[in-house]
């Protein structure tokens, strides 16, 4: 049952920013977002399995987060901004109902 964790796709609208600039992040991850409301062909409810939490940390500080419900589409898409304060790692984390995590990283240079 172990499938490799999907690799998220992340786009920052700038890699080099001036302090105080807004940086736009667009992120996608492959995930079925099984709502828990669908039935299989034998009429049994397919158990819920969704990404229920998403966070974006820059240099370890949370700049944006979201709690997701089954009404978020499959392959959840997140677009948001953060204010550039310092150079460092941009870490995006998707948390599955089963506790597993999908992590994606990028880098920002702030001058």
């Amino acid at each position, binding site marked *: 049952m172990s499938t490799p964790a999907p690799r998220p*796709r992340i*786009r920052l609208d700038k890699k080099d920013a001036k302090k105080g600039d807004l940086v736009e992040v*667009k992120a*996608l991850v492959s995930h079925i977002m099984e709502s828990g409301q669908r039935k299989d062909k034998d009429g049994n409810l397919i158990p819920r399995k969704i990404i229920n939490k998403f966070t974006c940390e820059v240099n370890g500080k949370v700049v944006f987060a979201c709690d997701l419900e089954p009404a978020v589409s499959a392959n959840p*898409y997140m677009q948001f901004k953060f204010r550039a304060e310092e150079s460092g790692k941009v870490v995006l984390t998707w948390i599955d109902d089963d506790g597993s995590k999908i992590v994606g990283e990028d880098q920002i240079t702030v001058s």
Partner: protein
Amino acid sequence: GGWTRAFAQQRVSEADLLAFQPVGNVTLVHVTDIHAQLMPVWFREPTVNLGVGEAKGVPPHVTGKALLESYKIPAGSPLAYALADVDFEALAKTYGRVGGLDRVATIVQAIRAERGDRVVLLDGGDTWQNSWTSLATKGQDMVDCMALLKPDAMTAHWEFTLGEARVKEIVDSLGFPFLCQNVRESEFQDEVFKGSTVVERGGVKIGIVGQALPYTPIANPRWMIPNWSFGIREKELQAEVDKLRAGGAQLVVLLSHNGFDVDRKLAGRVSGLDVILTGHTHDALPEPLKIGKTLLVASGSHGKFVSRLDLDVRDGTVRDFRYRLIPVLADVIKPDAAMAATIARHRAPHAKMLAEEVGRTETTLYRRGNFNGTLDDVICEALIAERDAEIALSPGFRWGPSLLPGQAITREDVYNATAMTYPAAYRMAMTGARLKEILEDVADNIFNPDPYLQQGGDMVRVGGLAYTIDVGKPIGSRIGDLTLTRTGQPLAADKDYTVAGWASVNEGTEGPAIWDVVFAHLGRKKTVAPTGASTVKIVGA
């Protein structure tokens, strides 16, 4: 045919149709919604084209005699024949068929000869599909023929029913831009096609933005274009216009496949558009409609018209304009030889089959109008008879030429009303409640008072079913008195009825192609004579 040529040429000459007092430094030439009609056709305009909300009773929602009167078009004139259904059969005998891409070519060349480097030719889309040869060649016949016209740009709608891969393949070979600012790759909303282009004509920098049908993935099968998303995208359009202006464009043109009422609303909300060349709803207007500073031009369909708009552009402003909606009378305009040869080459492998007679009609067969036309009645009758159904549903397409009384129905005539990439004639059970829901849903796509919620097209055509529609009501309460005509009994909400239809947007729909259903029916009936008697009662219009 030859029998009308002498009459038509007595009444009007090519020079009359092309006569124009030129003005200014730019000439826009617009064709749209040709629907792959390479050859001249008969085309009867609608009797009923209801407007709602702010569009109620105003152009293009004025038809027939009222239309001719409001524009002071003399009865019996070539333009009256082309624009209205009044005396259609008699005037058809006088003026003959309309359209034919070889005639369109002659007109375009004549304008270019007169206006030289001032001319911009723009194709509004719905060009590559809805004839047999366009279906058989996946649009290649149209692409090759249109290439001879050398358009400066095009936009699209039915083109997308060829699927993503084929559209991309053609666009890569096109040689001119395929403009769709409102089509984006679904995942990150990247542009799929160019949104705009800039050309210089008569010393004027002209920005042209293309707008595909915003509701393509709803009106047509989404599974054929799974990675593209559409929408009106007003904000992005405004940004595109602003970018063109900032880049020095002195004239900005929207080549639009939004539909007339959508463009009327959009013209009042997006600034900086000098001209909108509108398409999709197949309206033809003898004059541009001015919304604020924007000129709205509607050029009809099926190659029936070529629009010429002369503009005097100075210091980034349109100082003067002159317009003519040129009716393409096939017996009056002489065909262009090179175009005629290319058309003939593409038709040759199919010509014999297309000319085969499959039946005859004693009455005029036409489709245009908000509700069933006689051509739709024939299709619905065929669905009920050949698919053994109680009720038929046939899509409210605005494409499909007309046939005259006493005329043979050829295979080509049937293909011209049905040729498309998802033709399966399904047969399935639907409850009365589901049928009402479908009618309500489609009615709201046409009669919602907010044009941005309209998709163009007409009401789904029905066979075996009568109903009342109050177009002024909101969704859920327009449709009533649903009755099965065979029994005269009201439909029961929870009872199943056998329904046959075609052009389902759902993937995997099964059944014979609709044209085979119609061929089989005509083969049995030999002659049809639909009267146009309607089972739909319209109120609140």
